[in-house]
């Protein structure tokens, strides 16, 4: 028996000493492709210098809600970097893959960068110059492009930003619902994610206004030209706080816990914050904030906690089955 134990130990050792190549899967939402492409390269170089190990990060992108569903259904994500805290919480609640207090494990509620929602207006549209704020989105004949809030985190930010604007302007939730309903009456296409909506608006030439993540809007103008699109900043928008988390059960099984944790912690370093700013996400470190201050337009931002009592309540009131979105859109 002793020699069998020895052999099995030796066998285990062979596997252990060879585990120098590490692979992580980051399951993210649609508009973070460019950000994480650059960030992954920086982190791999950092990790190689620190430990000598080679870490390869694979990416998966899609609508935030869809991505969360994939992880719940078995996609082996080492980390998730999703558009909504609620989507990460859904993974915790429905699959038990990470603890309920996951937001307490990293600074700033596990939100290393922020963003907001702006309008991308087509310059060839007859409505160009007429769209200045949320209430202009109800103009007759105007086509608004936004993804499906049932599957897209960005779309939920859009929806709630419009709702809060309506509530403040018209004075009640009932009026806000009528206002948001009028906007969605002008939505001809509902993509499942923000990148799909970008394709619809920018490449397929559909719609007059695109409700866009700020970084997506900047990328579209950069790639397709300022002569085609203009970023319009509404008077009020929402502070979007995409969140990140290690998927505990997956990393423990794969033996990637340490590197996955380091991968997310590195997002808060100066080098990463600089990459975040370069990719048109709003950094959270004071140094990077100061450096990129002029890049981002000034806008009054409200938070989900202040306006809607947090994500859980917002989701229940607006996006669960039979909630306000279903009332608005199914009756459209």
């Amino acid at each position, binding site marked *: 028996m002793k020699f069998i134990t020895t052999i099995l130990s030796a066998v285990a050792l062979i596997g252990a000493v060879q585990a120098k190549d590490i692979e992580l899967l980051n399951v993210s939402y649609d508009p973070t492709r460019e950000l994480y492409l650059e960030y992954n390269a920086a982190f791999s170089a950092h990790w190689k210098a620190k430990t000598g190990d080679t870490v390869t990060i694979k990416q998966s992108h899609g609508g935030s809600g869809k991505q969360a569903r994939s992880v719940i259904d078995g996609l082996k994500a080492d980390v998730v970097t999703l558009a909504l805290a609620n989507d990460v919480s859904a993974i915790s609640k429905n699959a038990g893959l990470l603890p309920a207090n996951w937001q307490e494990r990293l600074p700033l509620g596990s939100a290393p960068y922020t963003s907001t929602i702006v309008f991308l207006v087509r310059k060839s549209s007859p409505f160009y110059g007429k769209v200045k704020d949320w209430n202009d989105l109800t103009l007759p004949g105007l086509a608004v492009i936004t993804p499906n809030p049932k599957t897209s985190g960005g779309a939920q930010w859009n929806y709630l930003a419009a709702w809060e604007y309506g509530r403040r302007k018209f004075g009640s939730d009932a009026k806000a619902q009528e206002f948001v309903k009028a906007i969605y009456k002008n939505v001809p296409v509902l993509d499942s994610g923000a990148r799909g909506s970008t394709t619809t608006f920018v490449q397929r030439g559909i719609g007059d206004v695109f409700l866009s993540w700020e970084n997506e809007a900047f990328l579209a103008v950069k790639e397709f030209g300022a002569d085609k699109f203009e970023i319009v900043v509404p008077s009020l928008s929402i502070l979007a706080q995409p969140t990140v988390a290690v998927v505990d059960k997956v990393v423990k099984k794969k*033996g990637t816990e340490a590197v996955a944790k380091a991968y997310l912690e590195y997002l808060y370093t100066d080098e990463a914050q600089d990459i975040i700013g370069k990719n048109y996400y709003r950094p959270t470190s004071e140094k990077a904030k100061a450096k990129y201050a002029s890049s981002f337009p000034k806008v009054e931002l409200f938070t989900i906690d202040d306006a809607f009592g947090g994500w859980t309540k917002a989701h229940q009131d607006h996006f669960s089955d039979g909630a306000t979105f279903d009332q608005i859109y199914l009756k459209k």
Partner: protein
Amino acid sequence: MRIIPSAVRTALVTAITAVGLTTTSLHAQAASQDDINALREQIRQLDQKLRALERNTEIKEETAAAAAKKQTVVSASDKGFSITSGDKAYSLKFGLLAQFDSRLFFDDGVANRNGFFLRRIRTPLSGTVGNIYDFNITPELGANAIASTSTTVGLIDAWLSARLTPSFNIKAGRFISPIALEPGSNRHFIESPFVNTLLPNRDIGIESFGKVAADYVDYRLGVYSGTRNNTQAFSTDEGDGDKKIAGRLTLAPLKSIKDSAWSKLSLGFGAGVGNQRGVGTIGGANGLQNIVTNGQQTLLSYRNATTGNGVIANGRHVQLSPSIEWYPGNPWSFVGEYASEKQTFTRYVGAVANNTFDATSTAWRATIGYVLTGEEATKSGVTPSAPFNFENGSWGAFELVGRVSGIDLGNELFYTGAQGGGNLNKYTNATGAVAYGAGLNWYLNKNVRLLFDVEKTDLTYGGSPAATGGAKADELYWFSRFQLSF
């Protein structure tokens, strides 16, 4: 709903524009700039509606395609029949290996060896559970290894494995021993060469396996019950308490030379060490499998089951087997293999133990293949570029094969008892052999093949007219096989 082609859409918009312009021209006197602008806006809105219609159709199709990917797939193809869950985490595959052989001997050895054989009828059931756990259960319904009158039904493989990391995985159950390169089978010929008669086929145990050193090294290492050589049958040896440590390393040293035939060169080294013991009672299992020729005829029988005279395995058992394989593409393939087996034996006279001794036997083979029709020669065979079809005049792929192999049994087995040996009769048995074989393999398609082999074996001793009961002679056979596998 179909997507409207852009050309159609453009034509439609142009037509609407033309109608608009015609209308405008007919009423040029009355038309105002506002009318023209209104028409332009109508056209723009129609264009937007068409684009939105197209995009919504596209999204519906994407959604349907994504949903289809999640659905369970039932597949029937040249790879077999399978059921796979949409996420591929669960699968079940039904396979078949059916070999129908014809054997014809031209030598004057033992009578009644010619005939037809259900050589192997295996129906493997394999699959995956929970994404990383694989299993294989393969019954053997043919298993006619040697004699035309004995067909047994048994379990050839039964194992579970867990794919943990590329470099470290675990397998447990009954499966192919890691010591030999091609245990129980042969890529080029119908029957295995002498090397296999000195090495185990299936064994029961637990092993780790994986690829390390940037996939340059493939390893298997485990602890096994230890079994007799060259047999797929369960035996009492596996329950005798003795264990064997065995493994195989396979190296691809030139893998990094891109676009070079040398990158396909593979060097292997299998080894096993442990104890192998039989029992000395008359008729008891001696822990040894008789040595056979490439034509599956008995070349050496260790012990007389009736009188008990002969030898049994009784101690340390060491096996080594280096190999070289080269499948450089098309049309050539080469395989070389060597085996050395050292076993401690005890000589018995009746049920009485006499002397104990060690004997080392060796075997080797070199095999070559040449695909006449130019397809790639791979380790699993040849996939014809034009499968056999009589009506179309396509004939599949043809491969010529050649083999030289030899065996040299330990002299100690034939020494007398007084000399400290096993006192086996080298005339009724043989002390060694060299065989020369050639064959033609006809691959009708990926799943069906016909094989034709002729092989001449020269025995050392054996079959001498001077020997009482000498029954063996040099061997010359013509074997044919019809095989279906998926």
